[in-house]
């Protein structure tokens, strides 16, 4: 027994000394050169949001990929966010790899270098900008209210005042309902007053509750117009109520507390996105996935204040 303790103590001590002295070569000081040296751009996404990000019908790992085994490859995911991220990686001359952490973990910042960038349809908001940097937005999303198909009592979004409305918790839709939403460069008209916001982990759970029937659990859901439209296209019994409530700008996000300086990467990505706007790639991808060109309006947005 004593011998065992001695051996264990020696091993522990050796491990400690080795780990402490293990001469690490001077690490790259900026994120862009790290990404280029690695040959992969690690992107966070959540494949729960068709048509932005979802699993492929027949997922197959990209052959010869440089992504690690816990990362997903272009062969496994698809959607507008996925294609945009792949185009950004192509512009950088590296392979795109995806990780799928919870949304809260992405918006919290402090990524600890686990991923380099979020290309996940994230709305640029002043609150998020406290933890994250944003690059040039790559498209916009109109937020809209959806109600049960057979409902006839609601004519405009304003009729939903005082009703029970489902939204994803921590999303801009929740801030819209309690009147605290600020979208840079947009004047918001808070048409729905005193509604009860019922929060969900994601929009799809809220929509599923609305689809149970008019007023069964919810009177309406506020979500991205394309998300609701996709449900309708899937034959779900809901309809859009009136015009979109407001427009959001969605851009790539970077960790403010990154150990490696992200500014060179932000600049490079913003430049690539500007190029993708200019040559029409983003408009084309948007038509393909979302069914309408939501990208064009994002080209003129000045995001420079969010990258500093």
């Amino acid at each position: 027994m004593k011998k065992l303790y001695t051996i264990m103590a020696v091993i522990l001590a050796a491990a400690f000394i080795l780990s402490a002295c293990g001469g690490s070569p001077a690490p790259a000081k900026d994120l862009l050169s790290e990404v280029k040296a690695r040959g992969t751009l690690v992107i966070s996404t959540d494949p729960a949001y068709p048509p932005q990000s979802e699993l492929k019908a027949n997922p197959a790992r990209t052959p010869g990929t440089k992504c690690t085994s816990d990362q997903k490859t272009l062969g496994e995911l698809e959607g507008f966010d996925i294609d945009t991220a792949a185009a950004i990686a192509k512009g950088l001359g590296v392979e795109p790899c995806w990780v799928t952490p919870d949304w809260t973990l992405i918006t919290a910042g402090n990524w600890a270098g686990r991923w380099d960038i979020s290309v996940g349809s994230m709305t640029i908001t002043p609150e998020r900008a406290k933890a994250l940097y944003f690059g040039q937005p790559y498209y916009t999303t109109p937020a809209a209210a959806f109600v049960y198909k057979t409902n006839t009592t609601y004519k405009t979004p304003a009729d939903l005042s005082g009703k029970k409305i489902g939204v994803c918790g921590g999303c801009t839709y929740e801030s819209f309902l309690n009147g605290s939403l600020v979208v840079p460069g947009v004047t918001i008209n808070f048409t729905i007053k005193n509604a009860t916001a019922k929060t969900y982990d994601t929009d799809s759970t809220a929509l599923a509750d609305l689809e149970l029937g008019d007023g069964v659990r919810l009177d309406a859901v506020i979500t991205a117009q394309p998300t609701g439209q996709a449900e309708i296209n899937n034959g779900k019994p809901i309809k859009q109520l009136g015009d979109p409530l407001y427009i959001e700008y969605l851009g790539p996000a970077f960790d403010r507390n990154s150990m490696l300086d992200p500014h060179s990467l932000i600049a490079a990505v913003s430049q690539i996105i500007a190029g993708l706007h200019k040559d029409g790639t983003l408009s084309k991808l948007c038509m393909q996935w979302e069914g309408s060109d939501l990208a064009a309006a994002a080209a003129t947005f000045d995001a420079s204040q969010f990258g500093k």
Partner: protein
Amino acid sequence: MTTENFTGAPPLVDPHQSMGEGLVALQKRNRFIQGIKVTAVWAGLIALVTGGMLMLRISPAYMLAHYNVILQGAGTTLYVSLVSIASATMLALLGSISRLSSNPIAQGIAGFYVSLVRGTPLLIQIYLIYLGLPQIGEQITQLGFPAIGKIFILDAVPAGILALSLNYGAYMTEIFRAGLQSIGYGQREAAIALGMTPLQVMRRIILPQAIRIIIPDVGNQFIAMQKDSALVSVMGVWEITYIANRYARRDSKYMEMFLVAAAAYWILTILSSWLQGWLEKRMAQAYER
């Protein structure tokens, strides 16, 4: 039941042997009938559940086509749970011995650990470990120890295993403590009187007996852990729940995927219960009459 006597007289026959045999046979038959009755109740309940499922708007074809993706997730679930239960057991053993020791430092550390970890929700622990540890690592890196700092930046799976191990280790510390305390004090005194060191007393006298009492509860914890491991999906680990959820959203097949996932968890826990039963039987061998 014959016994040889030493005088060479004809073997003694137990006059009540036939009665005893009859009693054993009766018990056996009763057990058999009871088994059939219980099976019938199970069959009835399964029919009821199936009937309920038939009333759901589900597509069995979709479930059949997608059970294999859930199986992939089952591998991850099983791996995470197995590694976690193993390290939680080690933690619990250390924790319970510390709790029962007379050393104030060991007792203090173990008591604090159990109180802190049992008093906070697992999901929050997962968030804290995944988000918080790297920040500590960063500070250590800035102090000039990058190699140590790097250890704190855990990937999703190791972070999940750490959180589950710590969490279950705390609950199991109490299970182990109860098991160790259930062994009569007289045995410890006798062993000390024979000149055994405290370590020998623990290893040779207390633990082998306590394990028998602890095993059923550890099995219980393992079953609970397989389902709690779903929480690591928040870090993007592709285990059963995560995969079920993502496929459900892609194809708007919520009930289908959740039913398949539920079945996968159920089968996993049935297998674990068998394993637990087998272990219990083995451990009880010495006590059987």
